[in-house]
């Protein structure tokens, strides 16, 4: 125990020895951690032959925050505040599987209104996440204007999320048994429950129209662009069987032609009430991964439009104990996050703190395909593939 208290343990020394042969005749180049296209601090050590990748070794861990360890000293409500920082571009969606897992263990039934609000906000988070992708992906390929156009529209979504939850990125709005309750009991501010603010439904409806419009703009600006197509079509094809074996999930998996969407199969949120299509690609190339996400924005807007048309009334919170103790047991709940399968494996021993919380994040598995997928590509294709995987380093390293 004492030898682990070495101060170096806390510091991250940058010289991670990398398992590549240094004496190769070709060029070995670092892409990252401080590189414009690695979405944060990912490092790729690429062996190049000219501009062709011979071998690549991703180095991760620069964003490792040890959430699984931190969760072992935090109560379940406190963990909620942590998990929406895992994948910060879709913070709200990260909370859902944890909440559902705890509720499942505690056998709490969430009121219909809370479920509907959760669903609406999850889909808004999905739109926001995909808009970040739609903005950054063309940027990786050299077009910076779609970035601004998509971010301009994302602002409307973030405002909606903020209007309800108070946080743009880190909503921390879910509570075990429902959504954020009225806090305290005295003053005017707190007397009111944190229900949807007035005007939310009409603003959301308007925002969804804008989302459909920006999707059309993206079609004009990006999808239809021949250079974009030339850069992405047939590039970095991920075959479906390989994607499954690597645990690639979400839009990346669907782009490879596997029509697997947890929203259809799992019942963590009442998606069965709404109509939507599971979008799949055909070839599993970068273009399909882009196209699937673009189409998913439309589908998400469709779900939200249906959901806001009929939000059930009722309480926002199930009856939960004041001090949350989770009964002894294990469960795994996964959800279709914008980036793929996000799940929490909770091992509870009956206390207020989880004995073990395994966070299964989508980006980690999605990224693990890199060494395989990057072989034989050109340097510009590295960027095309990296961008199309839509990962966030916080989601990779946790």
């Amino acid at each position: 125990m004492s030898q682990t208290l070495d101060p170096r343990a806390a510091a991250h020394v940058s010289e991670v020895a990398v398992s590549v042969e240094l004496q190769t005749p070709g060029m070995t180049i670092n892409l990252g951690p401080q590189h414009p296209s690695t979405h944060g601090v990912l490092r790729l050590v690429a062996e190049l032959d000219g501009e062709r990748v011979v071998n690549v070794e991703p180095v991760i861990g620069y964003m490792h925050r040890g959430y699984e360890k931190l969760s072992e000293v935090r109560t379940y409500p406190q963990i909620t505040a942590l998990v929406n920082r895992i994948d910060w571009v879709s913070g709200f969606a990260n909370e859902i599987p944890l909440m559902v897992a705890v509720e499942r263990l505690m056998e709490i039934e969430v009121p219909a209104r809370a479920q509907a609000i959760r669903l609406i906000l999850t889909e808004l988070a999905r739109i926001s996440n995909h808009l970040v992708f739609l903005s950054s992906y063309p940027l990786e390929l050299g077009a910076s204007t779609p970035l601004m156009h998509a971010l301009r529209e994302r602002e409307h979504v973030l405002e909606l999320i903020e209007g309800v939850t108070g946080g743009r990125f880190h909503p921390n709005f879910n509570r075990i048994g429902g959504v954020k309750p009225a806090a305290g009991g005295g003053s005017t501010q707190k007397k009111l429950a944190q229900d949807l603010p007035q005007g939310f439904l009409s603003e959301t409806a308007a925002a969804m129209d804008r989302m459909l419009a920006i999707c059309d703009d993206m079609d004009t600006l990006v999808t239809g662009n021949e250079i974009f197509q030339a850069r992405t079509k047939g590039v970095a094809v991920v075959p479906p069987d390989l994607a499954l074996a690597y645990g690639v999930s979400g839009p990346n998996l669907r782009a490879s032609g596997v029509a697997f969407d947890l929203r259809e199969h799992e019942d963590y949120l009442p998606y069965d009430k709404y109509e939507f299509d599971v979008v799949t690609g055909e070839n599993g190339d970068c273009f399909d991964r882009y196209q699937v996400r673009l189409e998913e924005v439309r589908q998400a807007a469709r779900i939200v439009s249906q959901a806001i048309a009929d939000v059930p009334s009722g309480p926002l919170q199930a009856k939960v104990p004041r001090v949350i103790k989770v009964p002894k047991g294990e469960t795994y709940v996964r959800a279709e996050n914008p980036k793929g399968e996000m799940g929490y494996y909770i091992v509870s021993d009956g206390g207020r703190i989880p004995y073990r919380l395994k966070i299964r994040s989508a980006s980690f598995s999605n990224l693990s395909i890199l060494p395989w997928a990057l072989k034989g590509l050109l340097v510009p294709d590295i960027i095309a593939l990296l961008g199309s995987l839509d990962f966030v380093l916080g989601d990779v390293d946790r």
Partner: protein
Amino acid sequence: MQARGQGLFKGMWLTLKTLFQKPPTVMYPTEKETPVPRARGVIALDPEACTVCMLCARECPDWCIYIEGHKEEQPPSKEGGRVRTRATLDRFDIDYALCMYCGICVEVCPFDALFWSPEYEYSEMKISGMLHDKGRLTDWLETVPDPPALEA
């Protein structure tokens, strides 16, 4: 399928149209956006309501609230009543450099002493300046807005 090269020019038409639209930029220091009433900007403290129960400091996931208090004797409210003790707040600091704006403290406060204010202009040049004391937290109390009306 469209003709080859057509997509390039459709995109150019779109950017040209955007060129003549008014940008949605808010010119920040001169113009200001009004955050939504629920926005979690900063935590305001009502020191009168605080009973030094330590609940917020204990529930804080980041351990960023520092509270000290002492007990004071109060004269009985009724003639001949018993002398009551009352906890008085001496120190209430929130380290905003550590705070992750989860709002657990505001929620758990049983006496309504903590409030969210959408105020956001409190950046500091030094990280130590982010430790806000009781006085500063109390000053924010007047920026706390009324809660928004709810959707029916």
